[in-house]
């Protein structure tokens, strides 16, 4: 009886609250509902306009050179082909702009960032969720601090990383500096999503493990963390997809204008980042370079949407509901 009542109670949500339908059908209500629909789909419409407009202006540049050439590379064959179509000769020197250094650089940055941010973030979250008491002064300070860090402007993270690199005497513009900036930037995201994933693991699992004599750490390592992996993976992929599109902190680190492939070891090599390369191309006075920027944007968006889709797939496929 009581379970049936509980089931009914939990089935009641705002959307299923019984209302007289006729009451919701007057003019003002319908206008209001229309306005809500508008705000709901406004973003999608803007995003659609953005993608269509950019794809059209970059349509000529969806070729393999976009991935295999460096910015403003010159290729005699391509230049000749362009000259034959009667293009401005000034365009010729930039006829073949591609984003190889940016794409390679961003992949290196991503991997380095993941290697730094994920262990640190997960460890911090594990401590806050599984070890510390919620009311202790330390965890309260950390909590407020995390909320604050999550809203610190991205440029400022770049400044912090720049001064860290300067303090250890590293060169400006090297991969590790950018990775430090991006790791610090996504650290709050990783910690917050990991905590949520850990929180959704039911307490019975922990209690069962503890009752069998496992320590808190054994419980965390063998029971709680494995159960929370899908949630953690989703959150960190979303964090990384934010990091891959960031340009502002990398500006502060001194990234930019690298027209060669990075050398081993990659982390101390000077590299370029994809979004920053797009920014440079967008500032160009040459139409043909801006076209490449448009095509580059579509590639960048595809990478980010791909990461988001991966995150959603992981969540839907592996997340258990208890």
């Amino acid at each position, binding site marked *: 009886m009581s379970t049936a009542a509980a089931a009914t*109670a939990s089935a*009641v*949500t*705002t959307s299923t*609250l019984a*209302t007289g339908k006729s*009451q*919701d059908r007057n003019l*003002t*209500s319908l206008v*209001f*509902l229309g306005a809500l629909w508008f*705000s*709901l789909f406004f*973003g999608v419409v803007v*995003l659609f306009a953005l993608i269509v407009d950019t794809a059209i202006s970059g349509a000529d540049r969806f070729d393999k050179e976009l991935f295999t050439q460096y910015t403003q590379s010159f290729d005699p064959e391509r230049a000749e082909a362009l000259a034959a179509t009667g293009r401005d000769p000034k365009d010729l020197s930039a006829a073949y702009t591609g984003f190889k250094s940016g794409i390679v650089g961003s992949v290196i940055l991503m991997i380095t960032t993941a290697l730094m941010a994920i262990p640190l973030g997960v*460890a911090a979250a594990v*401590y806050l*969720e*599984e*070890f*510390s008491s*919620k009311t202790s002064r*330390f965890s309260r300070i950390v909590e407020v*601090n995390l*909320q*604050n*860090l999550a*809203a610190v*402007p991205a*440029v*400022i993270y770049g*400044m*912090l990383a720049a*001064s860290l690199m300067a303090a250890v005497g590293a060169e400006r513009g090297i991969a590790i500096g950018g990775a430090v900036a991006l790791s610090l930037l996504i*650290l709050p995201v990783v*910690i917050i999503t990991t905590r949520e994933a*850990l929180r959704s693991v*039911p*307490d019975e699992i922990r209690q069962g493990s*503890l009752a069998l004599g496992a*320590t*808190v*750490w054994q419980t965390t390592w063998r029971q709680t963390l494995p159960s929370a992996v899908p949630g953690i993976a989703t959150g960190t992929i*979303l964090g990384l997809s*934010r990091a891959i*599109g960031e*340009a*502002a902190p990398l*500006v*502060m680190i001194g990234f930019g204008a690298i027209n060669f492939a990075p050398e081993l070891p990659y982390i101390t090599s000077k590299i370029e980042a994809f979004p*920053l390369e797009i*920014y440079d191309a*967008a500032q160009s006075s040459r139409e043909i370079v801006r076209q490449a920027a*448009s095509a580059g*944007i579509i590639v960048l*968006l595809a990478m*980010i*949407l791909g990461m*988001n889709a991966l995150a959603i797939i992981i969540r839907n496929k592996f997340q258990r509901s208890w």
Partner: protein
Amino acid sequence: MTALTQPSPPSGAGSAPVLTARPRRGEAVIKAALVTAAGASVLVTAGILFAVLEPAIEFFRRVPAGEFFTADTDSSYAVFPLIMGTGMTTVIALMVAVPIGLGAAMYLSEYASKRARKWLKPTVELLAGVPSVVYGFFAVFFVIPVVLQDWLGLEISAYNPLGGGLVLGVMIIPTVASLSEDALSAVPLALRQGSLAMGANRMQTTLRVVFPAALSGIAAAVVLGVSRAVGETMIVLMACGSIKNTSLDPGEGHETMTGTIARTALGESPVESTEYKYLFAVALLLFVITFVMNMISIAIVRRFRQAY
């Protein structure tokens, strides 16, 4: 909803009794490592303060504070024109993000079924995933020349806070929407039932009962939106122009705080120069502004959360 009807169970093993018979050294080490990781986030904040404060102090040693806190656009270190630019972009962004974010939140929380919400929420949040460089490009090559100049026929310059602010607003819609939705759906169901029982329809319930009850949470969402807008760099760098300007016309180019920071860093000024130190003074101000905003947001949420 469930969080309200039943108290959430205590989470975390920390609350469970620990009955280990003998101490395990390895685990002490692990625990120490975990504490260090958690403490690292506090170090990051300290690091930011130090990294920004030191050069900023150096700047004020070289340049009198009066030359920094001035609206005189001839002074190369004036900060008020930058604050003007940032303020203007932020206000325009909020004029887009607050109504639209709130509308989306109201639909998701009050009208959408559970299944619809599962699909609609990610579409709103998709906007947060688009890189700011892409938004900046969109502002410069589509919103300003096509929408504002061609379609609406406005006489505005090629780079201006109007276009930048509108696009910035689109970018922060998800921030406002998702926090407002949390606030709206935290309002107890009984309030809605009461209102509906009195004969109010759904719109009246949403606007006159649920909205006022969630106002503190919505205020926190808006404040966080402000701090996002103030700190955003690439859009304003690309779209708002580079002229120090104190006019109130959003159609003219205005340099902003973050725009100055990025432009100086991209430029050729040597790291030890006063121009370069200047960007840290601006960054310090920016950090203080966003910090205060976040604290206000946290305080609002904390203060009014226990209302139900």
